[in-house]
């Protein structure tokens, strides 16, 4: 169906579709059939990626929005709503994505950036990722020396505004500072909220659980239908927990 539809488009429209899909193509060598094939391949690649990166529940859910088979070709948005790229404030936010990854986005006030860049020995910006013992309640400072377990830095460019952070440990607290570096001197520009990566719970020895009714019930709850020895068929979240070297057991 998509092939028929693509073939009915003018060469100019095909260029536009290819461009929208981010396809690099030497337009001086324009060949209609070839371009249709390249676009079809790109669609198929997207489709495959969606299948791989979405579980059954998500794939089924997407069907309720599936009213048009060639949506990418048909959708022509007439009205474009303008929104700012940034809000001209210095701020950093941390969001938990899964036990191992977090997403952070930040913004920098333009005047502050100008002032920093005017400094003779401005070296750049960086993120400092902290592993913390706990999150202090009632607005208490969580970044005190005795509460910081570990940290590492990620240099970022002025044009960057977000990053995916590998947390590395489960069941721990994390926070981020957005910092500048001028002549070797660090300055904290903004601190993020604090997140906690979810902790894991699984039997210490998965081979010897058959005598433990509680553990058997747990297995029935989610693991019974999987071959617990064959890691490839275990849900990713369970694999993540089992592979981790930093499990917090509670049995």
């Amino acid at each position: 169906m998509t092939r028929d539809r693509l073939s009915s488009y003018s060469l100019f429209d095909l260029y536009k579709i290819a461009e929208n899909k981010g396809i690099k193509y030497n337009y001086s060598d324009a060949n209609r059939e070839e371009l249709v094939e390249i676009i079809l391949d790109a669609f198929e690649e997207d489709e495959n990626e969606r299948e791989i990166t979405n579980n059954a529940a998500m794939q089924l859910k997407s069907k309720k929005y599936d009213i048009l088979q060639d949506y990418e070709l048909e959708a022509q948005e007439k009205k474009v709503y303008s929104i700012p790229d940034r809000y001209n404030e210095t701020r950093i936010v941390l969001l938990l994505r899964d036990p191992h990854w977090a997403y952070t986005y930040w913004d920098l006030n333009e005047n502050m950036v100008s002032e920093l860049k005017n400094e003779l020995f401005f070296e750049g910006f960086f993120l400092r990722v902290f592993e913390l013992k706990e999150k202090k309640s009632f607005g208490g400072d969580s970044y005190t020396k005795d509460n910081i377990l570990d940290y590492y830095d990620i240099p970022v460019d002025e044009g960057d505004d977000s990053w995916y952070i590998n947390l590395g440990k489960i069941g721990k607290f994390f926070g981020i500072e957005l910092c500048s570096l001028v002549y070797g001197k660090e300055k904290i520009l903004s601190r993020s909220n604090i997140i906690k990566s979810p902790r894991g719970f699984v039997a210490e020895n998965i081979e010897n659980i058959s005598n433990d009714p509680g553990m058997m019930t747990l297995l029935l709850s989610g693991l019974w239908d999987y071959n617990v020895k064959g890691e490839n068929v275990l849900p990713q979240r369970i694999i993540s927990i089992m592979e981790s070297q930093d499990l917090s057991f509670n049995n």
Partner: protein
Amino acid sequence: MAKGFLGFVLHAHLPFVRHPEYERFLEEDWLFEAISETYLPLLRMFNRLLEDKIKFKLTFSISPTLSEMLTDDLLMKRYMAYVENRIELGEKELDRTKNEPEVNRTVQIYLDLFRKNLEDFNGLYRQNILWGFRSLEKEGVLEIITTASTHAFLPLFEEYPQALEAQIQNAVISHGRNFGTKPSGFWLPECGYFPGLEKYLKANNIKYFFVAEHGILLSDRKPENGVYAPLQLPNKTFAFGRDYSLTEAVWSADTGYPGDPVYRDFYRDIGYDLPLDYIRPYIHEPDVRVNTGYKYYAVTGDTDDKKFYNSEAARIRIEEHAEDFIRKHLDQIEKLEGLMDKIPFLITPYDAELFGHWWFEGVEWMELVIRKVHDRSDDLQMITPLDYLSRVPESQVGVPSFSSWGNKGYSEVWIDGKNDWIYRHIHKAIDRMTELVFRYPDESGLKLRVLNQAAREVLLCMASDWPFIMKTGTTVPYAVKRIREHIHNFNYIYDNLRRNTVDTGWLTKVERKNNVFPDLDYTIFGASR
């Protein structure tokens, strides 16, 4: 006494899509297809069971945005036009296929469906199908619960208590207006939970909610009963976990029931197969081919050479699959025997739109499952979480883990390279909305209208549907447009208020378009606990 309890949970939800600025709008068909293929057929099925005096009870979550659309005059008028158009197409199809008996029989099935829909919609429900659900709740066969106002994925708003409160409190208010009751249960959108969320639920008198299985399995204390009994949280709310393997029996792409070769194929639709001149009045302008609902082929297999759909063959398979589902429950209960000190509660939650819309035979399958459970009441009994809590007051104790039912079980569907850009804007809008409540704590007249609309725009941009669509790639340009529209509208209001001006003409236009939650009070964004 039954050996096990079975808990069907159906979650009905669609994002708020309403475009009075166009005569017809493509994405409004999401609602019309769901009414035709899922909601009305489900109502008929429940009523059939009632008439046959079958004992059953299930939990039905209806999202506030869906409820608002189902009571919107413009959308319901458009639904009438939609279903009349489909009946006209069916009549033409009956004639066109009169010499193809295999196809003709299937045409008749669809035509009957649409005619019955029109009859029920106008006659039985007087264009408000929520009455159908309300009446089933009064009959005691449904327990209707609510979900977040615009179906926000709540873990991504953990740092924004005012937004959590707005999503939950407004949902309870909307539920009261539409169903006349206070909901006891709450469907966490996408089963998205983070420790602490229960505080906001409890504050709004919610007694229980649902989580993905690993939410219970990885809770802060060893859950002795796994997902087969709820977890009582320290604040006395209850978390019920889904049974993964039973849910997968329906969901699995490889072994799930809907993919059976004899079932109706979702993709082959005459909207794509028939000549434009013929199909033009039933698709979108300008000649945009869409699904019409008339689909004549069976799944068949991984081939383009599809077989015609045979409803008789499908019926035999539905019976087998209903029996298989029951057997899977009984197997699970048998395995649990002796491991638990209480009767296990097996929860299987599904998106309602899966039944009838994607899985055409799904409604009939569910009816058969319910009838079979009724016939085996010595083994199985269908109940709701409230029923369970009144029968089994003792629960395991703990706090579930951060979890969702999305891919890999956490937030990755809603924070991804394709959609992560939206959060800086949504979070900013929430912050600014709270600032507006602080600046204007008690307004009336025009300013009150402006502030209420600002709150509506913030709620609308929080919907989990838009990042979900961006990630799964169905109608991405529309999802992007919707996020941009609500952020733009909010920022326009915010900037105008800072200048102390109001664009009355613009406001009236936006109020008429994005008219969800007519009784929304903007100060809800200042009510964080």
